[in-house]
């Protein structure tokens, strides 16, 4: 009942909003949040195409599901590590502004 393109447009808009945030926000946590938005947009895309393929094949197509699962696992790992790094940097240098973190040495 809902055209495939609607889902894709929604995903595209969400992705763009997330991209804007990821590039332009100063706070590193906010950058991570924006990346989460982008990953969610990707998942909408994947699952929309999964539905499309399942409906044309007539049985549950699993490639799309596995792909979406991998995206979620990657997102979880990324958040865990990313926030840990932000907290460690914050403890050493007392800043969470992404552009101030410009030296590799602690």
């Amino acid at each position, binding site marked *: 009942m809902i055209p495939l393109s609607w889902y894709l447009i929604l995903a595209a808009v969400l992705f763009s909003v997330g991209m804007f945030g990821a590039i332009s926000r100063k706070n590193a946590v906010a950058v991570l949040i924006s990346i989460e938005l982008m990953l969610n947009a990707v998942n909408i895309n994947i699952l929309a195409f999964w539905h499309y393929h399942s409906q044309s094949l007539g049985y549950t197509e699993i490639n799309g599901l596995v792909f979406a699962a991998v995206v*979620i696992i990657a997102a*979880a*790992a990324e*958040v*865990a590590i990313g*926030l*840990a790094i932000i*907290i460690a940097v914050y403890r050493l240098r007392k800043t969470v502004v992404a552009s101030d973190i410009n030296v590799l040495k602690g």
Partner: protein
Amino acid sequence: MLNQWLYIGIFFIIAMFLPAVAIFLARLLSPKKPTKIKNSVYECGMETFDPTWIQFKIQYYLYGLIFLIFDVEIVFLFPFAVAYGNLALFAVVEAIIFILILLGGYLYVWRKDALTWQ
């Protein structure tokens, strides 16, 4: 499946609506006599000092992190559990390896004392 989700959606709206209406009605019925003291922040009768947004222990984040990893891991074992009846012993061993890999990390975290509240 859409019908089932429709029911959940309706239920969610109602579950938000009922307490909201109750609170709204109570707001209309209740007296409103705010005073300076009454509206101040409650801190055992003392004057409030320092901003509220104090810093928190790192321990909270560590628990959150371990929980997140476990949660993701368990969630993707659920399809395995549902399909259990159709799987061969080999697949079951695979799932157990999946858990055992995580168990290595769990032991590391335990040895590092990240699980102990300090």
